[in-house]
């Protein structure tokens, strides 16, 4: 059968793909016991979505300590005026651009953890991101990410290629490692884009056969994973997805990625851990206050998170979104109406299992005597305790020492985001 000349599909939407199980595939796939059909019990499986804000987000302008006098003293040009802040508890407030999240605070599904960060002193983005993704601050020798190490120990849920998915063109460090994970840039474009299903099927199997013969290594493994993932995704049939409950995602990368995560969750393909990242937080110059650079980014973030929660509706009862960032920014604004690299920052947790409506962590205040290096918000919660809580209490992980080597994650250090 000749290949169709129209090999490019311009707009999205996969054609229906018949469930033609190739007997050869079954034999080849014997090495990985993938389930062939989704089990009904996956529909409520817990999902952790990690949203990495790359560039060191200014936690002090996200969860604004408007009750702390030093906040206004140190930020004459970029502090969010008290009249603009969306008050949360009389001391902290939300940046106004995040007002879409206020209803989630009110219904107790949104919590913040403040003064959280890394014990390591580095102010290098790349090092600090590396440390936060590998889960070993101070050590550059760690080859894999903490989320991947979690997956390595989560044998029970290893029977789907969609257990760990990163949305973006590259697989991030946090998911690098021996446990298979997928990097998907666009769900609808995932797979070979040939209109005729039979031709597409034939070509897919041909490529699959080629990659079966590849020398062992990353190419071979990724190749095999690709085809398994294509198969399962097409079984789940993610055609022309429409968000539910009137959810409207803002335009932009964050909304697009969260929409697809929601789609995957609802497709019941066994997604357990999802990752997305967002850039543009490195506000050295002209950060803005209630409006401006940071506000614009927060607007997109807040709108996207709110849409995600709306879209999933009831399903949010077992989904948690956790934001993170490699460090925070200086308490005092710099000479360019911006902020330089700091230390502790604020992280947000959103979802049904979250004990929301609270700012958690131990607030050290912005008093100069309490600052890190005399200039930054001090870290009072090690990020590994927060991430550890997510894994233990939300995903049911039992062996955290393997996930965070060299660190003893203790339950009594958990910030208390998830009910025990």
């Amino acid at each position, binding site marked *: *059968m*000749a*290949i169709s*000349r129209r*090999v*490019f599909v311009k707009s999205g939407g996969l054609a229906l793909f018949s469930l033609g199980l190739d007997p050869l595939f079954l034999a080849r796939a014997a090495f990985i016991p993938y389930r062939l059909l989704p089990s009904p019990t996956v529909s409520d499986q817990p999902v952790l979505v990690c949203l990495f804000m790359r560039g060191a987000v200014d936690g002090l302008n996200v969860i604004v300590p408007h009750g702390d006098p030093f906040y206004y003293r140190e930020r004459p*040009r970029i502090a969010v005026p008290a009249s603009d802040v969306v008050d949360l508890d009389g001391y902290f407030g939300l940046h106004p651009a995040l007002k879409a999240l206020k209803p989630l605070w009110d219904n107790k599904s949104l919590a913040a953890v403040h003064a959280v960060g890394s014990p390591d002193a580095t*102010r*290098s*983005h*790349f*090092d600090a991101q590396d440390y936060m993704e590998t889960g070993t601050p101070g050590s550059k020798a760690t080859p894999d990410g903490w989320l991947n190490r979690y997956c390595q120990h989560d044998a029970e849920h290893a029977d789907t290629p969609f257990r760990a998915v990163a949305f973006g*063109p*590259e*697989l991030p460090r946090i998911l*690098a490692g021996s446990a298979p*994970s*997928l*990097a998907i*840039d666009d769900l609808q*474009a*995932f*797979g*070979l*884009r*040939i209109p005729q299903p039979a031709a597409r099927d*034939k*070509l897919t199997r*041909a*490529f699959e056969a*080629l*990659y079966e*013969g590849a*020398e062992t290594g*990353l*190419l*071979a493994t*990724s*190749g095999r994973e*690709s085809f398994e*993932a*294509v198969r399962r995704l097409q079984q789940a049939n993610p055609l022309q997805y429409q968000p539910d409950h009137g959810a409207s995602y803002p*335009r932009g990368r964050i909304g697009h990625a969260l929409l697809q995560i929601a789609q995957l969750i609802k497709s019941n393909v066994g997604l357990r851990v999802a990752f997305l990242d967002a*850039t543009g937080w490195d506000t*050295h*110059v*002209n*950060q*803005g*206050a209630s*409006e*401006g*650079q940071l506000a*614009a980014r927060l607007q997109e973030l807040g709108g996207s998170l709110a849409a995600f929660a709306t879209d999933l509706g009831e399903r949010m009862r077992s989904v948690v979104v956790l934001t993170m960032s490699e460090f925070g920014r200086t308490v005092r604004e*710099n*000479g*360019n*109406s911006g902020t*330089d*690299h700091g230390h502790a920052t604020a992280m947000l947790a959103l979802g049904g299992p979250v004990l929301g409506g609270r700012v958690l962590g131990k607030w050290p205040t912005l008093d100069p005597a309490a600052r890190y290096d005399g200039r930054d918000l001090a870290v009072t919660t090690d990020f590994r305790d927060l991430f550890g809580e997510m894994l233990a209490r939300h995903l049911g992980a039992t062996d955290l020492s393997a996930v965070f080597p060299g660190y003893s994650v203790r339950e009594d250090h958990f910030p208390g985001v998830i009910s025990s």
Partner: protein
Amino acid sequence: MRVVPALVVIAALGVPVARIPRPNPTGQRPPLTPHDSALHVLNRLAYGPRPGEVDRVAGSGVMKWIDAQLQPDRIPDPEVERRESSFPILGKDPGDLARAITVVRRQRFGTRQNGQDVGPPGRPLLLPADSQAALHVRQTMGQLQQLAVMRAAISERQLREVMVDFWTNHFNVFFGKGADRAFTPSYIERTIRPRAMGRFEDLLVATAKSPAMLFYLDNWQSVAKGAEPPAVARMARLDDARAEQMLARMPQGLNENYARELMELHTLGVDGGYTQQDVIEVARIFTGWSIERPQQGGEFRFNDWAHDYGEKTVRGVDFPGGHGMDEGLRLLKLLAEDPATMHHVSRQLCARFVSDDPPDGCVDDAVAAWRRTDGDIAEVLRAIFVSPDFWSPQAVRAKVKTPLEYIVSAVRAVGGDPDTTPRLAQVIGRLGEPLYAQPSPAGYPESQEEWVNSGALLLRMNMAVALAAGRLPGVTIALDSLVPTTEDAAALIEAADVRLLGGILTPHSDDVLRHEVANVPDPVAARALVIGLALGGPEFQRR
């Protein structure tokens, strides 16, 4: 399809039969033949071979070819020169571009751009996606990207193009940041390209002075504590209050961004030995390194009034007070000559040319050449290319291609002709490497872990199939003179493998391809299928 004895047909096609030897049962690979050596250098020093090129290079001598590539200015490159005339961006300077962007922005927003200021406080540095100015930006960006892709695909000075890509990542700037839209084109043309194979220190200094880098890493706004611009001083003589207002709008302090990345990324490396205090001192040294009217695409200017003339100490070295721009040049020289820099950059070069985690041998050879020649990049490269590590069996086909390398090598393999639209560059962007659009100062990554994942592989397979069918945007192909259609499956596959891919297909792949074309009666479709599968398969992902 009839099965004709393969050798008969191949002899008729006049195609030399040469394939990469497979490892024997003990796992040892035999030493490289001239053919394999030629393929190896074309995969490393170039963006892969064009049809017939492996034999040409093997025939005239691999070391001779390397030697020629190390002196790019002596290689005629008429085809590239001819095509460059179709890129209007080459005729524009930063001033032209900045003016055009400003005009469009004014039309759209109706506001005046103050030449000295960044803009009103809080104005985002990135324009909204749907504005006229954004459209102009995209067009400029598209041209710039396509220019790089065209050169990579067509130029005879391949090593130089590879080095330009290397330095573009090493000294990364982000096109999307504010005035960098106006500065990036001349940054590539006048700062990076002429110095890609000269002395490292020259390149380092040129980037330090480039408006593109000064803007990207904010140094143009870094001023000494208490510095007062002349305009403010003049105003103060007339009207104190207004002077105060002017001063409030001006940059008012030290910015550490460039100082940090200069040491962490450009020279010493993150473990090269420097402290936070050193970063501050370096920032002080570079106060005053600025841009004349950046929003109008101005040139480098040293602002005396902004410079910190106090004494400094950097990594234990004293910088006495009273020095202006010269102390920055002195610092750059010290950094360029530092052993940590030599090691850091040499290691990165070896990661590009040898393997993701390069052996110490080639790194040491590179460092030795660096020392001996005072940082002559061409000589450092020469040392790498003669080092045993470069030629070891472990190094051959050890690297996985980045999106740029993958698409360009595929286009070259089929003798493709890229046009002057940005479409081919956009394909590369879709695969994850939009040129000049990397916000991180570290540039695009080098190692396979960063690029190889299921989603990316599927996209590559899509592109390969499209290219082979003549449907990849931005490039045309003409296969008849390279791989004539034939009813003979084995001959077709052999011809495609040897003439286009350099003989890299394994017997397993051979079998798969034979099986696939068995039921394809149309010879043109069969050829497209074979080439599409081969280009999208695992062997061609490597270089």
